[in-house]
């Protein structure tokens, strides 16, 4: 386990460093820039759905979905991140308590 921790952590760090160290010329390419703008959108959207609607490798619909809906509402109302997270966790806990 320790080997995996050290190797994976070192790899993750080196990828962060590599991104900062690539010559600026690489960014001048409009396709690279456009792709870099799209990546976080796709990844965050994927993280939203997979972390809300799955359990292991199964698709599930549980209290987290209610939390996510409230989070979406809070974001639409321009609530700060902390309030968004607090509203989502409280809602999820409450739904679990009731159901």
């Amino acid at each position, binding site marked *: 386990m320790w080997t995996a*921790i050290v190797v994976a952590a070192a790899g*993750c760090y080196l990828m962060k460093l590599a991104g900062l160290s690539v010559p600026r010329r690489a*960014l001048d390419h409009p396709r690279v820039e456009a792709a870099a703008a799209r990546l976080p*959108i796709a*990844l965050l959207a994927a993280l939203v759905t997979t972390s809300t609607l799955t359990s292991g490798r199964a698709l599930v619909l549980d209290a987290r979905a209610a939390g996510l809906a409230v989070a979406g509402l809070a974001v639409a109302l321009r609530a700060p991140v902390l309030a968004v997270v607090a509203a989502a966790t409280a809602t*999820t806990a409450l739904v679990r308590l009731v159901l």
Partner: protein
Amino acid sequence: MAAIAHPRLPVVRDAVGIGVATGAFGLSYGAVATAAGLSVVQTCALSVLMFTGASQFALVGVVGAGGTVLAGALTALLLGSRNALYGLRLAPLLRVRGARRAAAAQLVIDESTAMALTRGRPGFWATGVAVFVCWNAGTVVGALGGAALADPRALGLDAAGPAAFVALLAPRLDGRAARRLAVVAGIVALLAVPVTPTGVPVLLAAVVALAVRR
């Protein structure tokens, strides 16, 4: 409070807000990681050394779900690859060299990148440091309280991650193309969950992002 607010105050306030939110997330990570069989020291080492939440959750998730340590590490690395692309975007913004670049690199994560792109350099450093401190503090408390928090779900903490991701995603959905990409990527990843190894669905979303033209 002084009548004339320091211009950086809102940035610091938002950074601390994001930090506290990720601290709560770190609490659940610490509890989940120890429940997956990692020691308290291993759990905390990951938060200090790896410091990229999705990869950490992936690593302990795969190991906890019975996957091999190698598969867990590989998934973590693949998930962490997005930070290289964040770094690519941040480089011209931060313009750091030497030791500062080495320090900045560890802070290149979802939250600091999102804040840097909207608030510039102070947003990056304030958010990076706030999240690093809170994430690690949350990890320690979560790992130590792992037994007491044996079921973090009861507190709804498993919804903290999705909520944070939504909060980070929303400001980026500034056009029809962006919204369409988010919907497609989210659905593709979800449909891939039952048929691909843990961690791969999110990477498929990255493939979607690179495949679309506009």
